[in-house]
């Protein structure tokens, strides 16, 4: 038996409470460990705290109790600028609404994924072209978002998240705005990326989507209700 490598992301008793009357405990003492190369589905109904979990994993939000480690960094010790740099270099995001810049070509939208790394424009475009080819959109690189189908747009968004070769790719309801066929294509793409070694976390409320992912984490009322990984370790002591 070899010692397990350091996890890409790790939550230890992480909580997040939003102030208010009464305060909303969106995440309660969650424990989660995501290893390199995993494809994890985080499943839960709306309001279950899965978006908070994604934001905390993506360093967009800070846990107010417990520990969160991304790529070995304890987020509590990092400044806002350091968190930004973690997002620029280590984390890729895919959103339900794509958030592509209108009127900008697919190539430049993908290249914008590297904007805050300080790479020169030519290099950003070169890598963007490579990544577009990887998601099968090389022939669409000079199309603008309004000239692309929903599924193609989401693949452009995936390429943008991927172009910086992140340690962790976070996808928030990536199929939520797509018809089932396009959604399946995007999921296939994510599975392909997983095969080639990318660590991916997919957040979804859709059990059918989750069923296609190798590891599922169910979340309810801010708590991790079940985790395939833990069940497996439990079954094999």
């Amino acid at each position, binding site marked *: 038996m070899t010692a397990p490598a350091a996890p890409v992301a790790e939550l230890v008793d992480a909580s997040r409470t939003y102030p208010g009357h009464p305060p909303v405990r969106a995440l309660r003492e969650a424990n989660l460990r995501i290893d390199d190369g995993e494809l994890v589905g985080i499943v839960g109904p709306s309001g279950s705290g899965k978006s908070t979990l994604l934001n905390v994993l993506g360093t967009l*939000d800070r846990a107010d109790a417990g520990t969160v480690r991304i790529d070995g960094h304890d987020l509590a010790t990092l400044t806002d600028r350091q968190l930004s740099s*973690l997002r620029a270099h280590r984390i890729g995001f895919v959103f339900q609404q794509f958030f592509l810049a209108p009127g900008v070509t697919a190539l430049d939208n993908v290249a*914008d994924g590297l904007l805050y790394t300080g790479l020169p424009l030519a290099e950003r475009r070169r890598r963007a072209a490579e990544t577009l080819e990887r998601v099968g959109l090389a022939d669409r690189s000079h199309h603008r978002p309004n000239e692309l189908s929903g599924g193609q747009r989401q693949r452009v968004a995936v390429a943008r998240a991927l172009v910086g070769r992140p340690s962790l790719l976070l996808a928030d309801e990536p199929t939520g705005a797509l018809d089932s066929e396009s959604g399946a294509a995007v999921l296939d793409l994510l599975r392909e990326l997983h095969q080639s070694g990318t660590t991916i976390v997919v957040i979804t409320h859709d059990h059918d989507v989750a069923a296609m992912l190798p590891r599922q984490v169910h979340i309810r009322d801010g708590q991790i209700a079940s985790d395939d990984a833990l069940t497996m370790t439990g079954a094999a002591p």
Partner: protein
Amino acid sequence: MRPSRLRPRDAVRVAATGLRSRPLRAVLSSLGIAVGIAAMVAVVGISASSRAEIDQQLRALGTNLLTVEPGQRLLDGETAVLPAESVDMVARIGPVTSVSAVGAVDDAFVYRTDHIDEAKTNGITTLAARPDLLDAVSGQVASGRWLDDALAAYPTVVLGATTAERLGITRTDGSVAVWLGEAWFTVVGVLAPAPLAPELDAAALVGWPIAEELLGYDGAPTRLYERSTESQVDDVRAVLPATVNPANPEEVSVSRPSDALAAQNAADETLLALLLALGGVALLVGGIGVANTMVIAVLERRSEIGLRRALGATRAHIRIQFLGESVLLGGFGGIGGAVLGGLVTAVFAASRDWPFALPLWVLGGAAAATILVGALAGAYPASRAARMSPTAALATV
């Protein structure tokens, strides 16, 4: 870990992209600044052109002309009288290069015909002029001829520019006569406007001898015109009163018409400051317009801000982006305004035959002002955008 980094060139690109996505709004909101800058540039440009014109005029006319007038008598406050021989006395001052004089002929008014009511003098004065007058005041004959020694003894008259206009006289071939005093005087010439001796414009000039003969003129000059070497003007000025009237030098008043011309221009400076302030108000209003646009842009583009934070932008990068947009808006307004103001100045100057003058500091000032206004207008919206939490920004859609 390498920090997030936005290259300066990319910062400019990002800011410009924000404006390009809504061109009409960008144009409209920078229009306010453009109007303000155009107003300020045009005001300064027109004033500079007018000053250039006056400088050019003064260069052509010379600033070495001094005029001597009788002052008031100390005893009774009546207007003093200059001695008849004063012209010759002044001519004897060393540096003096030319001297001449006119004398007001009292109770001699000019009419188109002898049927006009005597009370309607039209504001025209009759002056007896020495033949060398035009040399001394740099005067020009617009048409006809001047009162030389030959004509000065006959009832002939040369009209000032304004006088000719008021009487409606353009012909100077000897076919037109005016009723002057108690006799007909033939119009032999019309003068061009004389900037250094504006009193000649509204006068009718007759020869010295004929004035004494026909109009009861006493021969006392009422205004002397004197030119000297440029460098000696002040020295000449100091000795003029005693030379003109040795008995009562305090009854003589000396002035320098070129100073008056320059002073008239200086009086315009107050108006200039007022107009500049008005342009400043327009600039302020334009700045508020830009601030308004930026506030709306920040609200509308929350998801873009959230996305950029997710892509690794720091707060400073978001601030730079929106500040850059605002400065660009101001800058476009400034460039447009400077061009517009320059055009207005050029057209105005051309319409008045002035030289075109637009000091470079105005353009530099306009650029600095618009950048400043853009930065001030964008400061608050940009800091709001920067403070926005990424999760809140992303959750708004």
